[in-house]
């Protein structure tokens, strides 16, 4: 069964979107770790781990799509008669493993980001881990199960960060909420990604979401240089 519903004309472009997403997520990871090294705030470390997991998930899917892209090109150049976007058997193991880890890491990362603003970080971890593994494992039978799970996590993240925004009234938090909302919309569309134009639309929405996150990074970096954050002075 196919898991990647990329239309042939879009193959390659979606890899570029994934590469861009990976870079943004990795930047967030680097920022979190830089912060943790400076003030030893463990929540920054967990945030960094969350972003790292999602960026690794993106990396695994980039490598797989890259393999599919080259495999397809090869098939086209050799035969020209049978053009198929099914993965040949030699790629099957890598294909399934990398998509499994893509799903697993993304859901785990989203769960960590969801948990961070909460006072209590522990609780229900075993249960949630179980469901994350199930959702990741079942992706090739029910591909939409992963997208629905991701959608639920994103909805919970949005709810939590709306609460954070109500307390801090920071534009940055609002930007993060917008980015997460766009990601949530893209997940809804991914559920119907068998329709090729919806797949492309969801990829474009995902790209806009990561551009929003890039704006957030630039804003944090610029503000840090020009503005003093007040500390009960």
């Amino acid at each position: 069964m196919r898991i990647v519903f990329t239309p042939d004309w879009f193959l390659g472009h979606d890899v570029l979107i994934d590469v861009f997403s990976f870079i943004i997520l990795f930047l967030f990871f680097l920022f979190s770790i830089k912060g943790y090294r400076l003030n030893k705030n463990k929540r920054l470390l967990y945030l960094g781990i969350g972003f790292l997991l999602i960026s690794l998930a993106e990396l695994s899917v980039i490598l797989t799509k890259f393999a599919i892209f080259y495999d397809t090109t090869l098939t086209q150049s050799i035969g020209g008669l049978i053009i198929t976007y099914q993965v040949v058997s030699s790629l099957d193991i890598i294909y399934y493993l990398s998509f499994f880890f893509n799903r697993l890491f993304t859901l785990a990362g989203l769960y960590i980001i969801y948990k961070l603003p909460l006072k209590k970080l522990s609780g229900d971890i075993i249960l949630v881990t179980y469901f994350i593994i199930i959702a990741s494992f079942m992706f090739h039978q029910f591909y939409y199960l992963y997208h629905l799970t991701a959608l639920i996590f994103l909805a919970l993240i949005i709810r939590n960060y709306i609460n954070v925004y109500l307390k801090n009234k920071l534009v940055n938090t609002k930007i993060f909420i917008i980015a997460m909302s766009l990601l949530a919309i893209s997940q809804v569309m991914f559920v119907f990604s068998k329709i090729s134009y919806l797949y492309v639309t969801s990829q474009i929405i995902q790209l806009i979401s990561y551009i929003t996150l890039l704006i957030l990074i630039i804003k944090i970096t610029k503000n840090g240089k020009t503005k003093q954050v007040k500390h009960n002075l």
Partner: protein
Amino acid sequence: MERRNKLNIIYDILGVIQKRGEIKKTHIMYQANLSHNQMKLYLDELYKKKFIENTDSEKPLIKITKKGMDFFKQYAQVLEFEKTFGL
């Protein structure tokens, strides 16, 4: 009201100094909301870390160094990042 940790106090002191350019010790004490003893302790540490230095003028004034300014900017980014995520 949230208690300031050591790094936040250092950040506040550096913020006061960089805002004024050159500043007297007593002004740092009032503007960074510190006791005399606290201020002495923190300034000693900032001198040791080469985050601040005395000016060449006759008056006993303090200014921020490039190293101090770099730390200040980096820490401002981290604080902004933390606030964004409600950490």
